[in-house]
């Protein structure tokens, strides 16, 4: 039942916010999100002490005639994803304290609604339920971007919505196709295990078709080259909190989906097409890194760097070996935290100086040393320096891709170098040297801003030095998937 509470609580919270219309909605939202985080920690502890506990899974009939069940549960992988999203949502809420939004109760309500859908995606054990949550997550973020976004948001969010909807429909067809091949005592079934069995009973060419039908949805969400064209514009135009939700958590829906809802389902399809998909991911890494180097807007730079990172993650996943998947899980966690930090820094820069143009900034370290240190830590986490949280994931990922193909690994490994190039160069231009514009000033950070950055930096260092608790879960999650694929 605990797990159902984890889904219902944010839903209830968002409804309260929608109808409360209080001016104090952000404190209220933060309170709800913190309670949700505590709840997820309780789930985590339960899982630690007894993974088979009845509290951790729940199933009841939803649409009996179609054999659709409301069936949810956690394993190592989904628990990590749930923890990531419940941890990030309060942080994201906290980052908004210096911004004022019109109709803020709706804004915060939508964020919590989004959280409900995200948690649902991660814990669903029924193919249909997974799809419903997957689609449901799109609606709040669409409205967040549309209503509180920047310039030209109408056209851009449009493209985003239609692009992702388009991918999802293909996934739906793929899932229905599998569903039609399930056979549980002569009946059809949506349960994840039965879908796995159905997928594996198909011929290689059928599996190949299902692979692409489902993978397209995930590839668009992540996004993988060449399905990425919606991403940079949407990230830039979305309000900061929307960007954080998109990049920090929603992106993980795609990678998570690939691990849980694709790999064990169509092993033969993966064998046939995995190489192509890994190739696309690696092309994306290099392509996005090169574009990132030439970006002028810091937020856009982070958007492209995110494509590069997720390219590596997906290459690792599609390599389909223990290191690759484990590394992907670790990197998903690290990337979630780091990218939220980076987008927040871009937001702080914009708020204090009125611009995000890298060339117009400079010399901020002299004006605010604390900020320079915090920025540096986040940045080092993002370029995966040893002893930061990004390191272990990236190391395992490249290792995993190497086992798959040394050629691919050589190209994928370029991300380390290219990432360092664009990140360190932008740091140098923004923070170091002399200020280029004499009007530029950068005052002290607000308390809430400082709190967010310190929390993020602590996490970056803490899990860089001692990744064991997360790594154990990730290892276990990867093992389960590898077992399933046999």
């Amino acid at each position, binding site marked *: 039942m605990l797990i159902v509470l984890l889904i219902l609580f944010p839903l209830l919270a968002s409804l309260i916010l929608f109808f409360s219309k209080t001016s104090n909605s952000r404190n209220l939202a933060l309170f709800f999100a913190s309670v949700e985080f505590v709840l997820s920690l309780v789930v985590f502890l339960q899982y630690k002490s007894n993974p088979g506990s009845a509290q951790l899974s729940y199933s009841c009939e939803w649409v009996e005639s179609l054999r659709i069940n409301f069936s949810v549960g956690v394993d190592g992988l989904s628990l990590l994803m749930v923890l990531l999203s419940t941890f990030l949502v309060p942080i994201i809420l906290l980052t908004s304290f210096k911004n004022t939004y019109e109709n803020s109760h709706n804004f915060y309500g939508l964020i919590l609604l989004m959280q409900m859908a995200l948690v649902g995606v991660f814990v669903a054990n029924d193919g249909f339920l997974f799809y419903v949550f997957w689609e449901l997550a799109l609606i709040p973020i669409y409205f967040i971007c549309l209503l509180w976004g920047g310039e030209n948001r109408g056209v851009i969010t449009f493209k985003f919505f239609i692009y992702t909807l*388009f991918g999802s429909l293909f996934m739906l067809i793929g899932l229905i196709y599998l*569903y039609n091949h399930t056979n549980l005592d002569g009946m059809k079934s949506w349960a994840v295990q039965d879908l796995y069995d159905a997928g594996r009973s198909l011929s290689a060419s059928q599996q190949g078709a299902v692979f692409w039908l489902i993978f397209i949805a995930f590839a668009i969400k992540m996004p993988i080259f060449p399905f990425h064209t919606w991403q940079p514009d949407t990230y830039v135009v979305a309000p900061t909190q929307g960007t954080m939700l998109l990049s920090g958590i929603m992106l993980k829906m795609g990678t998570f989906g690939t691990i849980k809802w694709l790999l064990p389902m169509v092993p033969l399809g993966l064998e046939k097409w995995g190489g192509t998909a890994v190739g696309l991911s690696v092309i994306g890494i290099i392509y996005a890194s090169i574009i990132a180097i030439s970006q002028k807007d810091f937020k856009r730079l982070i958007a492209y760097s995110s494509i590069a990172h997720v390219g590596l993650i997906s290459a690792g996943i599609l390599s389909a070996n223990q290191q690759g998947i484990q590394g992907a899980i670790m990197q998903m966690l690290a990337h979630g935290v780091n990218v939220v930090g980076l987008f927040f820094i871009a937001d702080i820069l914009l708020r204090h100086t009125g611009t995000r143009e890298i060339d117009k900034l400079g010399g901020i370290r002299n004006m605010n040393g604390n900020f320079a240190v915090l920025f540096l830590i986040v940045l080092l986490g993002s370029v995966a320096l040893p002893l930061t949280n990004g390191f272990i994931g990236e190391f395992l990922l490249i290792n995993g891709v190497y086992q798959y193909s040394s050629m691919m690994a050589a190209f994928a490994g370029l991300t380390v170098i290219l990432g360092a190039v664009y990140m360190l160069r932008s740091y140098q231009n923004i923070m170091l040297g002399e200020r280029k514009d004499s009007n530029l000033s950068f005052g002290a950070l607000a308390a809430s801003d400082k709190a967010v950055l310190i929390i993020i930096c602590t996490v970056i260092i803490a899990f860089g030095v001692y990744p064991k608790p997360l790594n154990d879960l990730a290892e276990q999650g990867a093992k389960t998937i590898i077992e399933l694929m046999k």
Partner: protein
Amino acid sequence: MKGLLIISSLGLVAMLAEIFKVKKLLLPITLLGLVAAYALNFLEWKNGMSISYFDNMVGFDKPAIAFSGIIIATAFFWFILANDYFEKDSNLTDHFALVLFAIVGSLMLTSFKNMTTLFLGIEIMSIPLYVLAASKKGDIKSHEAGFKYLIMGSFASAFLLFGIALIYGACGSFDLGEISTYIASKSGDIPLFFYVGVMMMLIAMCFKVSAAPFHFWAPDVYEGSPTLITALMSTIVKTAAFAAIMRLFLIGFAGVSEVWTGILALIIDLSLIIANFSAAMQNSVKRMLAYSSISHAAFMLMVILANVRSNISIDALVYYSLAYSIGSITAFGVLYNVTRGGNENIDAFNGLSKRNPLLALCMAIAMLSLAGIPVTAGFFAKYFVFTTMIGTSFKWLLILAILTSAIGAYYYLKVIIAMYFKPNTEQQTVPVETSNTAVIMITTILTVVIGLSPGFIAQMFKF
């Protein structure tokens, strides 16, 4: 059956009301009558017997009763929406009678067992609509709509009659059951003109549901007619026509399906492409809804094409009709209230979220449902279509349906964006009558409820 009789007599009462000066009571009487018809219809459903009347001319089996239920319920909501539309009009009683007779025709279409009843049903339903389409006096567009509808409709009727005659020539009977036994017994030995007859009937029915390439009348007629009449055409008439197609092709001509499936696939193809691309380019919301109704028609035809002569496909069709009808009633209800000023372009919706948040919310949900986003009724409707189609050899149609659905999302979202994102250009508030608000809210809630628990409805419509 009793529902059909009640509504027929309501029509007569409406005509007499002019003489006996009970105009004021007409609306309550009609609503009461519809409730009674619905209740009796429901009782027949409970009994679960399929009875034929009048020498097997009409027969109310379960699908017929289910479709009748949808039509009567939609009519009930429609009359509440239309209450002030009638008040303004001097020819109140005529309008009541015309609408009621159109409903009678629709009910006959859901339950015909004989080709003559089919033809009668179509004519009883269409003739009042020709008049109603042209009922906005002094408006040239409305006159054009009525005229176009009449000409095109008569064409379709001629095709239908010719088809019926050819089929009668081949098998010597108007009875659906006898036609299908004829097909079964004579397999391989059926004269060519029988197939020609089937094709002609297919064309005539596609005219009625405005599937491409027989759709040219629809946008003009929908746009020119008074908004509420358009609502009537796109809900009740559509549902009835689909019930008729289902009966005709899944029961009557199922034995010769290899002849008509290819053509039907082509028609669906064209409808999906033409409707969605044209809808995306419309400025007028009414025209957009007209084209979108063509696209929904294509979806419903897909169910017929899948030709799974099991319960699944009837289930899917009933559910789709229901989801589409209630979604359309909401959309047209909002449209009617928003466009009272006469501006039917999309900018009439600009800033509606500020002017009337409730109406905007309902419209947004209706649009999401028509676009097929979970967890609305429209999503499950599409889902059922996909599941029936995936077992057939027409999988490529599914891919096309997805591609065009994405375009569909585009034009539905355009309305949402106008409501929530564009600044106000119209007057400050949109006054809405309480009764209208109630209907719009009820249909919106139904959209969500049916979307959340489709099992309940699927259970109800198990055949």
